């Protein structure tokens, strides 16, 4: 896992005439967890989308850096992992097929056994993994999404409301995931859940 850090300086995002983020700065560094907090609509998801390069900032700069050099855009997909409420996996494929697909896309060869093991640590038992995701319950879908985000051992992990729809065991599994990635990866967690605020080494509080 290469060490990648993400820096954002005076990042602003407008939608039409609405300013959602005005000049936010900060950084994601390997070995630390940044918790992005704030009320609903504060711009947490927007910030994560900017860091992931899914949105373009209206002003300011987002840079992905590895060892002092900019990480070329074509390599972002190998080093970035993300899960958010507005991302879904393929409902007509099973959990296993989904993860096989995403692994291959990222050039990260993963054996079926490793995928099964990952899903099991996230609380999706092996016997459920070969059924179409469309038939899963809300919590089971969320686990597949999380597995998709971490399967390729990303250097930058962006989790938006990672434990939504999850039960207590699921919540613990997410905490375990964050603990596992903390030492090496740069992690950002956007959350509404007071319990998750404690996960962060740093905290960015957005206001409405």
């Amino acid at each position, binding site marked *: 896992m290469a060490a990648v850090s993400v820096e954002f300086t005076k990042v602003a995002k407008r939608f039409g005439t609405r300013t959602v983020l005005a000049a936010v700065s900060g950084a994601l560094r390997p070995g630390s967890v940044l918790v992005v907090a704030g009320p609903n609509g504060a711009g947490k998801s927007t910030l994560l989308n900017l860091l992931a390069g899914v949105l373009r900032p209206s002003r300011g700069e987002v840079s992905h850096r590895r060892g002092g050099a900019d990480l070329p855009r074509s390599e972002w997909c190998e080093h970035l992992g993300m899960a958010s409420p507005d991302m879904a996996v393929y409902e007509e494929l099973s959990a296993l097929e989904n993860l096989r697909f*995403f692994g*291959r896309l990222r050039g990260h060869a993963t054996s079926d056994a490793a995928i099964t093991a990952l899903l099991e640590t996230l609380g999706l038992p092996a016997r459920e993994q070969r059924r179409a995701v469309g038939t899963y319950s809300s919590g089971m879908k969320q686990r597949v999404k999380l597995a*998709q985000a971490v399967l390729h051992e990303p250097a930058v992990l962006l989790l938006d409301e990672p434990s939504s729809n999850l039960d207590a065991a699921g919540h613990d599994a997410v905490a375990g995931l964050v603990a596992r990635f903390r030492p090496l990866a740069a992690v950002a967690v956007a959350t509404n859940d007071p319990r998750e605020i404690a996960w962060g080494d740093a905290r960015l509080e957005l206001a409405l």
Partner: protein
Amino acid sequence: MRASSLLSESLAVLGKELTSEVRSRVALNAIGLFGITTLVVVAYQIGPYQIQEKDRPYLLSALLWVILFFAATSGLARVFVKEEDAHTAKTLRLAARPLAVFAGKYLFNLILLAALFTLIVPLYCALMGYEVRGLAGLALVLAAGAVALSASSTIVAAIISRASGSTTLFAILSVPLVLPLLVMLIQGTRAAAGSVELAAVLPALQGIVSLGGALLIVSVFLFPVVWHE
């Protein structure tokens, strides 16, 4: 290294498309059936005997391509729209390089078109009494046509998926792009029907291949623009 991994990624996208399609039952045979039913309406209503002998070469080749184009439209357009509808587009966008996505989807559309062609063309010839003398020439024209049509369909499908897309918009955007292609395809088909010589289709084939190639290359460069915002 890079090139071979690009191939593998493209094939992963293609494989996913194929499983998905077969799974969701909107499979190959669906697009084929659409072509067939269209064909039946046309054959039943216009039929082989409505057309004067001397108009046949022209009218029959024109009608064939009109049917093929519309049959293709309803199937090919969904390739990106379904990703947006199902909210999987963002996941895919974060996981794959644009070129791999384009290549995979392009190959998938190409396979759909090839299947459609092998199904409809013989049936059309039989139902409408269309005698083609240069089969090799026809095969070449069809192959070049599939390559070019799926290039334009794939990029237009990507564009409409980022608009509030619908099949209607797909047709509106692709018709102006495809019209010159259709004219050349019709001309090539007519040439193939009339002569056993391969040379007869060459002029049309040159046009088709160069327009198809131009569309494909421009699409490859434009796709990242369309895909990332």
